[in-house]
């Protein structure tokens, strides 16, 4: 039975000027999972994180962390919450190790140089511990942000676009770091534009748009429910009509009858099986196809479809 670590109910945020950034968000995060929150710019991802982490004052709803109301017990609860914001935000003129120690102290933890060393080593920052932050590369600066967030050993960690603007190598390095945190039992909520990141890392995925959660589910369940297979059979000689034997399949003709397109399946392999059946039927009926292209829809396709159909609800 999954144990909720964060329970958000009916969360609302309307900014001055009337912009409604969060419109009745309900979301439950379970202990130990990695949850990816996907959404386009302005969807409400950062406002949602800010509401839990204290930068944003919600205008409605309830947030419970570890089963306790955050509004009334924030001081106790925030000791176990960490945040890596999207922007590189620290005192650039300070040294790495001092900034990490500062973060640990601010969250009420006793000084522990052994733990600081462990955090810095895990992020390959130990050799740079006495460097001024401004002298580090962009990737190293981002690691400092993570080190600061980990310095007080949070149980619940928010990563707001952790790999935005970093190169592929560093992104994969970050993913390894996140994996290590998962192994240590840290619950992670990450927002990202990169669907690949969600596919790679997340146990569950949520999609938010216009301040509303459109979908929350297990990644594999989403693929099963919303995944599609698309196949293109091309012919040298155009077909006049779809053969009657294919009437049970979701197919149609395009390009003057020279291309038979199949769109179906559910992300569980059903689509591939049906494409194989169609190929066998065409061969049995002597209809020769010159080419066959197939592709499985990705989480990205599903995400784009969801955003184009805003009426879909969780």
């Amino acid at each position, binding site marked *: 039975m999954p144990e909720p670590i964060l329970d958000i109910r009916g969360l609302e945020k309307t900014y001055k000027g009337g912009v409604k950034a969060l419109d009745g968000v309900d979301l439950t995060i379970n202990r130990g999972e990695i949850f990816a929150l996907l959404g386009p710019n302005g969807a409400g991802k950062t406002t949602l994180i800010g509401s839990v*982490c*204290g*930068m944003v004052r919600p205008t409605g709803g309830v947030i419970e962390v570890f089963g306790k109301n955050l509004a009334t017990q924030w001081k*106790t609860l925030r000791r176990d919450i960490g945040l890596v914001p999207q922007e590189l935000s620290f*005192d650039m003129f300070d040294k790495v190790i001092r900034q990490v*120690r500062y973060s640990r*102290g601010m*969250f*009420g933890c006793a000084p522990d140089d052994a733990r600081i060393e462990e955090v810095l080593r895990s992020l390959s920052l130990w050799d740079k511990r006495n460097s001024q932050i401004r002298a580090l590369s962009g990737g190293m600066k981002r690691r400092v942000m993570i080190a600061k967030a980990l310095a007080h050993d949070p149980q619940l960690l928010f990563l707001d676009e952790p790999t935005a603007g970093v190169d592929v190598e560093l992104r994969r390095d970050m993913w390894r770091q996140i994996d290590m945190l998962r192994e240590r039992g840290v619950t992670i909520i990450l927002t990202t534009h990169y669907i690949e990141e969600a596919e790679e890392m997340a146990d569950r995925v949520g999609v938010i748009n216009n301040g509303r959660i459109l979908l929350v589910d297990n990644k594999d369940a989403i693929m099963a429910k919303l995944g599609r297979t698309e196949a293109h059979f091309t012919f040298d000689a155009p077909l006049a009509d779809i053969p009657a034997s294919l009437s049970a399949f979701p197919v149609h003709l395009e390009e003057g009858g020279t291309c038979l397109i199949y769109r179906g399946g559910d992300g569980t392999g059903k689509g591939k099986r049906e494409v194989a059946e169609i190929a066998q039927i065409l061969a049995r009926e002597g209809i020769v196809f010159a080419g066959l292209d197939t592709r499985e829809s990705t989480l990205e396709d599903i995400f784009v479809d969801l955003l184009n159909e805003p009426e879909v609800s969780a």
Partner: protein
Amino acid sequence: MTFNARGAFAIFKNELMRMFRTIFGSILSPVITTSLYLVVFGAAMGERMDLGGVDYGAFIVPGLLMLTLLSESTSNASFGIYMPKFTGAIYELLSAPVGVAETLIGFVGAAAVKSLILAAIILGTASLIVDYSIAYPLLALGYIVLVAASFSLLGFIIGLWADGFEKLQIIPLLVLMPLTFLGGTFYPISALDGVWQTVAMINPVVYLVSGLRWTFLGQSDFPIWVSFGATVAFLLICIAIIGWIFKTGWRLRE
């Protein structure tokens, strides 16, 4: 809700370290300025002032001390809280388990301590140039601490209010500095003509300078309790404003 002592100390230490990164400029500037004031004003005005037997150099030392206390306390605290806002690092303060008490002890405490260190340096510098004594040392120390804390609180409010470097400088440069110069730093209020004496009475810095001068010389323009009372009232008003800021999230939280 428990007080996060480690959090308060972490902020306090971080702020002091940040200030001491520019320690040479921070110390040299007030030392040179104070020396120049003592030498130049002492030479230019000292002969002409009738101070009832008090040496002019000794007379202006409390005023110069107040000038430094006001400007340094205000600018240290305003810069201290404005920089995290400017760089975005304020997110950490907002997401940490620190409330108004920890924040004030951290930021305002550090700003006040730096001002006190500078005050000690200025007094040391002045002792090399003029002959002065402090009539009530403990009262003087208490009053200096009170003023440093009060104006660090004011600086903290300015730092929260400012949304650009220009605003950060407006009140220290355009309000505090002129009021201090017109507040009896270099002359007794009784030396002014009738109408200007009345105008001077509405300048709050007059009471601050007068209070500090009383602890040094045992005499000044106003009774000491007026100065203490006005400064404590100012301190309480600043704390109330900061309490309101944290409660409403004004300029802090969206």
